[in-house]
């Protein structure tokens, strides 16, 4: 039984918060986008099942997740509709950076936007 007296805040807690901020800054630095976004990729169970260019507006679905509808608008993609109970994916809204992802657990779907450099489907290099 912990009937010990505990403090609310100690000086080392400031160090903890500092470390967390540093870690977050490092993560942000390593997930920065390196190039223009080209296409949106839909993963089902980790496997890419659809790759749609972000150029124009589009509404599409994926056969592996029949209850979900994806929408591309202004170079961003969102889950417009979903048959999952929580609708976490829908509440995520539009994602416009390669650091963001839309995840729907019941449908086992991950939606991400990729640049040419991060897209394994695109050619590695193009000479002119």
């Amino acid at each position, binding site marked *: 039984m*912990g009937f010990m007296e505990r403090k*609310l805040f100690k000086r080392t807690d400031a160090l903890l918060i500092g470390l*967390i901020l540093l870690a*977050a800054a490092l993560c942000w630095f390593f997930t920065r986008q390196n190039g223009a976004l080209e296409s949106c990729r839909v993963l089902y169970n980790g496997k890419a099942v659809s790759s749609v260019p972000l150029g124009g507006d589009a509404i599409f679905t994926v056969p592996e997740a029949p209850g979900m509808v994806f929408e591309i608008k202004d170079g961003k993609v969102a889950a417009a509709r979903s048959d999952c109970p929580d609708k976490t994916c829908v509440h995520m809204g539009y994602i416009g950076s390669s650091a963001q992802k839309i995840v729907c657990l019941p449908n086992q779907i991950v939606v991400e936007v990729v640049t040419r450099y991060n897209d394994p489907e695109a050619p590695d290099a193009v000479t002119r």
Partner: protein
Amino acid sequence: MNIKENTRRVCVTGLMLAMIAAVSWLEHTLPQPLFLPPNFRLGLSNIIVMYCFFFMGRGSAALLNVLKALAVLLFRGPFAGAMSFCGGMAAILALLLLNLLFGAGLSYTAAGICGALAHNLGQLAAASVIVRTNIFLAYLPSLLIAGAVTGAVTGIMLKAAIPLLDKIRRL
């Protein structure tokens, strides 16, 4: 411990669980706080779990998290239940580790922050496994900041709530 003490303990734990449910429900009816990423919540019910960890034995806190996850499983489905369970267990493990390392030197703020971070990391790990994709780096920054903020808030509120919760524990 005699039967009367056992019964009293069971009842108090039940009351704690009821309070956790009530606080969780209340939190859900509030609008999403703007300073948090979408679908991140303040986790106010963890105030009660942490109180139980410090004042009613570490096992009771673990039990409460398991029961909470069961309730989430019943009301919101298996995926939400799995997330709640993984987050809860990770948070308890973190608290156990901190208690082992620091004992009475563990401040409420640090406990809140580390518990929240572990909870978020546990949920992220569970989500990664479910969708079989590495989504770690994408969610880590928001998870770290949100965990630190909500954890600090929960820790501070825990300190304030101790007199109130003491009254329940001593019923």
